[in-house]
Structures are given as C-alpha cells and as structure tokens.
C-alpha cells in the first residue's frame, strides 16, 4: 500500500535534505499521500485519538514528574503539593489521571472495532499482535501509575497485584520479594514503579511506531472488510482522513474535558485520598474501572494460581485471535451469526466489568464464573467453529461499487468473492 513516495521537494533546502535523509518524503507518503479506503466510518478515528492521548499523557506526565517525589514518606504529600501549590498543578494531575481513563476507553473501542470488522485477519496479524503488546504495556504503565499517589488504593492494589506472583510454584515467594525490593510493598517498591512508569510510555511509543508501520504496509481494513482493488477505492490521507480524525478528536476532547473539569474524581476511588497505611486494609480493594473485567476473571477462579493463569490467559488469548477465528470473511457486516456473538461478547465484557466492582461473594461469584467461562468459550470454541459452519452473506465486488450502490449512482452490489 505504501508504495514509493510521490513527494517532489520544491525548495532548495528540502531538495538538499531529501537527498541525504528522505524524512519529509516519509512523512508525506505516510500522512499525506497515504491511500485510505474511502468508506471508513468514525470508528476508524480512534487510532488518531489514541496517538493524541499518548502524546498528551507523556507531556503532562513529564511536567508532573518535575514536582513528584517517589519516596514512601513524601509521595502523598508531594501530590497534594501539586494539587494546591504548583501553578496549574491541579489541572496537570487531573488531566493525567483522567487521561489514563479515556485512553483505555479509546483503546477498548479501537479493539472492539477491530473485532467487529475482522481487522486482525490476514494480512494484518502482526498489526493486531503489536496492538495487543501495546495493550499489555498500557496495563503495566497504568497500574504502576496508579500506585504513585501512594493512597490506600494505590498501596493495596500494589499489594494484591504483586502478591499474584507468589502463586508461581517454587520461585513465587522469591520473585515477589524481588519485585518488592524488600519484605513487603514499601518505599523501594514505589521507587521502582516510578522508574518503570516513566520508562514504559516510551516503549509504548516505540511499539506504536511499529504498529503504524505495519498498518501502512498492510493498508487499513474497512467496514466492508474487502480488499482495496483499485486507486478509485481510496482517498488521500490528507485532507480526507486528517480532517475527519481532527473532528473526531475534538469531540473526544469534549468528553475528556467534561471529566477533567467537572467530574475529576468520578472515576477514582475516595480511599485513594487516604494516605497509604500498611496496617489498615480497605473494606473493598478495587482496581481502576478499566481493569475490572480482568479482576472479575481473577476472582472467579477459586484457586489462586489458576486465577492468575486465567487473568493472564484472558489477555494472551488475544494474541492468537487471528488464527482462532477461522472465517475468511473479515467484516461482521457479512457474518450474520458472528455479529450476534460479537454483541454477546461485548455484553459479557461489560458484565465482567460490573462484577469486578462488586464484592467477591454469593451470586456475584457464580455470575463471574459463568461470564469468565463464556469469555474463553468465545475465543476457543465459538470463533473456530463458527468460521467453519457460518454461511456469509454475499459481498460487493469492490468498495467503490458498494458506495455507488448506496448513493444510488450504480447497480446494486452482487455476489462476489470480496475478502479473500
């Protein structure tokens, strides 16, 4: 898809640079001339939104790091100093804390879009796997970031999660102590989490670069899930995608601003405004909302080691999604049965999120077990079998044909082998 750069430097300076380092040409071919399918809908704008959020998180984070102190005895106070005495400190911190939330919100939409339209299928398997890697890095980064304010939830979340590693047979205890840097979660733990919290976003940025590279090699999928057949099927990235992405990003910023300015503590837990206390366990230890489905899976399993395995498997299974889904048709638009299972799966994930926020007792536990079983059933049984038995609907011959049929300029779409 990428093809050779059509960029023609006009000024002398640009010509000089282009012969030595064709960086303007690279930007031109990637973000200006890059051909995008002309039928992309607004669900495709989340890539741009996520890029924006990553940059925003890094910028606010770097400034916060100038004021934050990562010692157990001072961390909580330094965050309060940021909130009270640093110029615009309250804004920076609320942007950063809520930024993590909307970042996850966007990434989940991005992933579900990929699942609905089969964006992980040939030839985009590596693109998808890089995306799952980014998710893993985001989870690690967000978890360690949540520990930094050193409130009660910070401390106990760190305790619960690092304790998971003690479930590993034989070396579990040693690994956990190695993670802690001591005999319990303490200042040493906080310090290393801070160091890693600063490092990981740059690793995310690196994998994002690979993700975008892979995207530009394979080309974007589209709502019809059929390959781009001709130049007619595409539009140049600029201005078409640029302006649409900008509009969507601004709308997304309205949501972000709504949270930051009017509901800055809506997604947080009140207990995190209580300084960390290793002698006082909170009544309910709950993670941030974006980890709740995984937390429900962890607690659904009555055995600690198996619970931890299920937790990691819930993410690991995503790596294999391109091969677990045996259907050769990408888009759910043409897969009537898959489309229903997709929505069931989405509801199951929401249900797990709700259960993760509730105490692990009685009916909640039973419901968690049923939904956890379904989560894995979806990937391991339903998707492989469905691809073999489902009869997909006929797909249009090309993107252009489908568009013209829709806007009434041409013949209606007829059956043709689209996706393969």
């Amino acid at each position, binding site marked *: 898809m990428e093809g050779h750069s059509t960029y023609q430097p006009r000024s002398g300076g640009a010509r000089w640079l282009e012969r030595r380092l064709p960086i303007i040409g690279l930007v031109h071919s990637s973000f200006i001339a890059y051909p995008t399918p*002309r*039928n992309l809908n607004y669900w495709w704008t989340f890539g741009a939104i996520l890029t924006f959020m990553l940059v925003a998180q890094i910028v606010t984070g770097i400034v916060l790091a100038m004021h934050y102190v990562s010692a157990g005895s001072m961390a909580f*106070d330094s965050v*309060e100093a940021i*909130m*009270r005495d640093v110029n615009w400190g*309250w*804004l920076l911190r*609320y942007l950063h804390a809520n930024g993590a939330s909307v970042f996850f919100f966007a990434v989940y939409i991005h992933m579900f879009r990929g699942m609905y339209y089969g964006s992980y299928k040939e030839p985009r398997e590596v693109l998808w796997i890089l995306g799952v890697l980014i998710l893993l890095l985001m989870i690690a980064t967000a978890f360690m970031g949540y520990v930094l304010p050193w409130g009660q939830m910070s401390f106990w979340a760190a305790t*619960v999660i690092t304790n998971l590693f003690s479930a590993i047979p034989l070396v579990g205890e040693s690994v956990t102590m190695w993670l802690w840097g001591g005999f319990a979660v303490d200042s040493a733990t906080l310090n290393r989490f801070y160091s890693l919290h600063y490092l990981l976003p740059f690793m995310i940025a690196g994998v994002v670069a690979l993700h975008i590279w892979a995207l530009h090699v394979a080309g974007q999928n589209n709502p019809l899930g059929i390959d781009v057949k001709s130049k007619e099927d595409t*539009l140049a990235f600029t*201005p*078409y995608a640029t*302006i*649409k992405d*900008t*509009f969507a990003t*601004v*709308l997304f*910023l*309205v949501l972000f*601003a*709504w949270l*930051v*300015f*009017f*509901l*800055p*503590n*809506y997604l947080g837990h*009140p*207990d995190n*405004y*209580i300084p960390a206390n290793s002698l*006082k*366990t*909170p*009544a*309910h*230890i709950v993670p941030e909302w974006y980890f709740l489905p995984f937390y429900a899976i*962890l*607690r659904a*399993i*009555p*055995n*600690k080691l198996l*619970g931890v395995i299920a937790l990691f498997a819930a993410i690991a299974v995503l790596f294999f999604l391109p091969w677990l889904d045996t259907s050769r048709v990408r888009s759910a638009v043409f897969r009537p049965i898959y489309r229903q299972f997709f929505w069931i799966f989405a509801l199951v994930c929401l249900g797990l999120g*709700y259960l993760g926020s509730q*105490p*692990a*007792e*009685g009916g909640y*536990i039973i419901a968690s077990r049923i939904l956890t079983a379904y989560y894995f059933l979806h990937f391991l049984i339903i998707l492989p079998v469905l691809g073999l038995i489902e009869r997909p609907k006929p797909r249009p011959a090309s993107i252009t044909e489908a*568009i*013209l049929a829709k*806007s009434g*300029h041409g013949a209606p779409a007829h059956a043709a082998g689209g996706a393969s």
Partner: protein
Amino acid sequence: MSLFGKDTDPVTRTARHSLIAMIAAIGVGLGASQAVAEDEGAGHGDGAATGQAETLHYPLEKPPLLDWSFAGVFGKYDRAQLQRGFQVYRQVCSQCHGIKYVAFRNLADPDGLGYSEEQVAALAAEYEITDGPNESGDMFTRPGRPSDRFPSPFPNEQAAAAVYGAAPPDLSLMAKARGAPRGPLWTVIDFFTQYQEAGPNYIHALLTGYGQEPHAGVTVPPGGNYNPYFLSGPVIAMPPPLADGDVTYSDGSPQTVDQYATDVSAFLMWTAEPHLVARKRLGFQVIIFLAIFATLMYLTKRRVWAAVAH
C-alpha cells in the same frame, strides 16, 4: 480578639469531648478488630464467599442530598458559608482534627474564604508554630505567619492515638476521601448530572446522624455511638461533636446542628478542593472553545468530503 471568635471555654469543652471519645474508642475497638478480620476474608485467595453471617451493608442509610452552592457547571463557594464553616472547624473540630495541607495564606483566596491579608496575618499570629533548630540547635516556638500551615492538634499520630484510642484523622481531604456508594444506576446518571458532592453530603449526614434509634439487629456497645450513616459499621468512635448553640454566628444564621454540619461540610470541601472554582470556570471556557472548534472542523470536513461519494 473577636474576629474569629474563639470558644468561650475551650478547656471544659476539650475535657468533655476527650472523655466521651476515650470511652467510645474502647467500645469500638472490638468492632474494628472484627471488621479487619472480615476484610481479610473478602480479599482474593481461597476464594468464593467466605460465608459471613453479616447481612447488613454499610452505610445503613444513604445520606440526604443537599443543595450545594459549589455543585454544577457554574458552582462557586459561598464565602459567608465557608467563613461560618471555618468558625465551626476552629471552635469544635480543631480540638482533635488537623487540616495540615491548608496554609493560612489560603484563607485569603478570593474564590474561597476571601479574608484580607491583614486578617490572615492576624489569625496566623494567634497560632504557635514550632520552628528551628536555631543557632544553638534548639527548636523554638514563634507566632504563625501566613505562609505556615495549620498546626495539627497533636505532634504525631501516636500522640493522638494515646489520647483517643485511635488517631482522629486529618480533615484536609475528608470531603474527597469519603462518600457513600451510589449503585450502578445512579453512577451512570451521576456522569451526566456532574454529581461530585458525595463527600460533603456524607460529612453532613454523619454529623447530624447521631442519637437515632438503632436498626434492628444492631447492638451498640456501651459508650459506642450509633450512626447509621457511618461507612465502616453501625458504631463510630467519634462522639456527637456538635450541639445546638455551641458556636455563635455573627451573621444571624441559625445556630443549629444541621446548619453547623452544612457549613463545616462546605468548608471541608474547600480544604479538599481549593481550586474548584477556578477549575469549573476554566472548564466552561474550554467546553465553549471545543464546541466552536468542533463545529468548524465539522463544517470543514463536510466541505472536503462533499465532492466524493463515501
């Protein structure tokens, strides 16, 4: 010095207060240790429901929702209310609770209590601040300055715990560190109605929630204080701190427990979120800017895409 009107008889007051607190703390100690045991059972591990006989959920009652001047898009602190709340804090709460993150200079914030520089300096000077070490290596006390923070009633948590059984928590962040759970439906609605006042509602409910007939199934240990609004159980260590007429208001506001509780809750919202007014003011401007920006982008997008079928 009557600007901030000190309690007429602080000594008696403190003595009465701490005596009740001590008795209460002993009674609650038993309940608290039981609560800790429950917490451990609820954590992840060998799983499943640990079969607790306890069926009561805390808080036993939902706090009533009050109308706060600082709620909503255009929310602002009510200056007179904050000043009254500060008076209640100073004459009642400060006997046991600190507000260590608040500096005297913060009282001059025009979005908050709005005192003049002179008033703040005079107030700060009433407090004794431990400073040092001086040239001979000794700590010394001096009158407070506006740049100082409010000194806590106890030098450390252990000293407070030694008097009361359990250390009375610092109140600076209380309005953000507490709040009754709202349930899934209200949680969704709260996003649109911008409900962020769970903290002050909780504090007000707690302060006015003493003296009720205990729920069926609740046994109050001798010296314990039944309070159906308390988040962590039916009985709280803190004895009822307020009584009608305890604090004399100079602006003619009713001198009732309910009014004191409302005023001090608003004051504690301010100590927890001193930049709330600036935040909402900026937020409104940002939303307006984004709305205009989004409209322009949408029109541009339509223009760009007008020529192509998609």
